[in-house]
């Protein structure tokens, strides 16, 4: 029972982290109609910046904040220099160009930080286990991830639904040409949205960094998961991304935790130990395939343009 609670929390934490990544992706996709494969690279850069700045300043919080600023800046520069010229192009051109950026960032990281992974150590106050319900302890750091991600999600909701900039973002998502024609500086808006997406990816990367090692290519696997989420949730919908992210996070974590035991009850030991890892890794893709076969436009299809 305790194990189930713990794994549920792990799933929630992973899902919220995925949401941070997917939110930026779905905003950029929904508003600029831009497929950004390099989003995973921004996630990786966030983690590398954090590892560097934390080691440099000696403070986890300060280093994390600096890393956040650095990824925001990197996103804005990237958009300004290269990506804004690709908005009008087809998805394939965008895939090719941002695939090139992945190659670039991977080797840039290898040049600057070397091929070995980095570790981002946690400060002492974040490593203590916290008793959440009597008898169940949960790492403080993972609780902090949940809290930060929920706060960011709430803030994102407020910004998008309750402010003028958010209104422009939503208007841009439903009709880009029209809000340009109404005299809104659409280029600036796009740059801002891209920077915001980059910062969210960086935040996800730097928060994940202490749990996993910081390494080259860390963004590639998780990028595909983020794409799965925005496809399940319906492209351009932040609410859909939120629900899909938590759904995917929990299913993935629970599958990895409990599928091997479940399979062992049905299959022979050897067959189960072969099938379990494959099946639990495949679960998410299987889920997406089933959803797309049944609902070819995702679960929460965005309004027709």
């Amino acid at each position: 029972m305790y194990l189930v609670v713990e794994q549920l929390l792990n799933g929630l934490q992973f899902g919220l982290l995925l949401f941070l990544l997917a939110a930026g992706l779905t905003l950029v996709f929904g508003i600029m109609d831009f497929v950004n494969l390099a989003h995973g690279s921004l996630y990786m850069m966030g983690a590398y910046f954090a590892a560097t700045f934390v080691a440099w300043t000696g403070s986890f919080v300060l280093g994390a904040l600096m890393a956040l600023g650095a990824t925001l800046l990197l996103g804005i520069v990237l958009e300004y220099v290269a990506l804004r010229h690709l908005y009008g192009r087809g998805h394939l051109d965008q895939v090719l160009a941002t695939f090139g950026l992945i190659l670039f960032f991977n080797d840039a990281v290898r040049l600057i930080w070397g091929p070995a992974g980095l570790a981002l150590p946690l400060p002492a106050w974040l490593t203590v286990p916290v008793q959440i319900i009597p008898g169940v302890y949960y790492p403080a750091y993972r609780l902090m991830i949940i809290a930060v991600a929920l706060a960011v999600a709430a803030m994102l909701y407020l910004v998008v639904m309750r402010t003028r900039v958010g209104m422009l973002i939503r208007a841009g998502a439903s009709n880009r040409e029209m809000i340009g024609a109404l005299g809104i500086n659409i280029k600036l808006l796009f740059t801002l949205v891209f920077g915001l997406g980059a910062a969210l990816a960086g935040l996800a990367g730097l928060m994940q960094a202490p749990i996993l090692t910081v390494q080259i290519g860390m963004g590639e696997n998780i990028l595909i998961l983020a794409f799965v989420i925005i496809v399940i949730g319906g492209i351009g919908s932040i609410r859909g991304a939120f629900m899909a992210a938590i759904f995917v996070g929990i299913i993935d974590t629970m599958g990895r935790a409990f599928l091997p035991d479940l399979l062992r009850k049905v299959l022979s030991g050897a067959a189960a130990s072969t099938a379990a890892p494959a099946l639990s890794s495949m679960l998410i893709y299987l889920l997406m395939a089933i959803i797309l076969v049944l609902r070819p436009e995702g679960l929460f299809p965005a309004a027709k343009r």
Partner: protein
Amino acid sequence: MMPKLNASNAVAALMCAALILLPVYSAATGNIFILTLFTRITIYALAAASLNLIMGYGGMMSFGHAAYLGIGGYAVGILAAEGIGSGFIQWPVALVVSALFALLIGALSLRTRGVYFIMITLAFAQMAYYVASALSRYGGDDGLTVYKRSDFAGLINLSDRNQFYYLCLACLFGGLYLIWRIVNSRFGLVVQGVRSNEQRMQAIGFHANRYRLVCFVIAGTICGLAGALLANNTDFVSPAVMYWTRSGDLMVMVILGGMGSLFGPVVGAIVYLLLEELLSQFTEFSGLILGPVLLLIVLFARGGIMGLLGRMRRG
């Protein structure tokens, strides 16, 4: 019909001649490396050409095409590991399994369009990747060594460098000829018609998805052949062959060379793999140059290299 003489046709003809004469050059100069490099390039060119059939002519943006490379490769590797070394069994199995896989995922994926199609093909390829990683009997994550290349009963010796190169080249030319015939047939015209306007083709009575599916299966089968060649070339097959970045590589080759042009993917494969190889000779960080080059090509050379050549002709 006599092809017109223009820049892109001239490049294609020169390229074919150079590919045919390459072993002569290699033997004359003793440069074995260039032969092994181009063996790999012809195999990837075949895979890219098959992707071009569905992407360039059929308008189906598959992001999971590398799955067939792995399936063809594993068909050869697994049969070899089980003691069945004959190519007359291995290769037909590789083709049939690839075709069946394409039929299955095509039938499901073709219900979706656009980005959703890109993502669902990617999802199926990732599933194949994880299945291969779990085959602990056949190496799992570490991959499977193919100790003996396919045996064709003395007809052709795959361990001979020159013979294997010409086999790969023959498969490439055969694949290109097949694609050329398909594209210019009634069937191919329907598929291209569906790409440009699906509703109109439906309205005049064509069952669009059936044509698409057949095209998808043909492309998967050709790529399965490339997979069988690849496993023989590297004497090794691993799940990494099916990872999504490899599918991305294939897409890059097609777009780089020129989508929807017969020789485009071949040019793309040659340029992409040569560039990667050359850059890795003098720098460890080839991506630092290759990445921005891809970006610049997208920004300034629409329609890929063949598109660029086509524009040269028009001046």
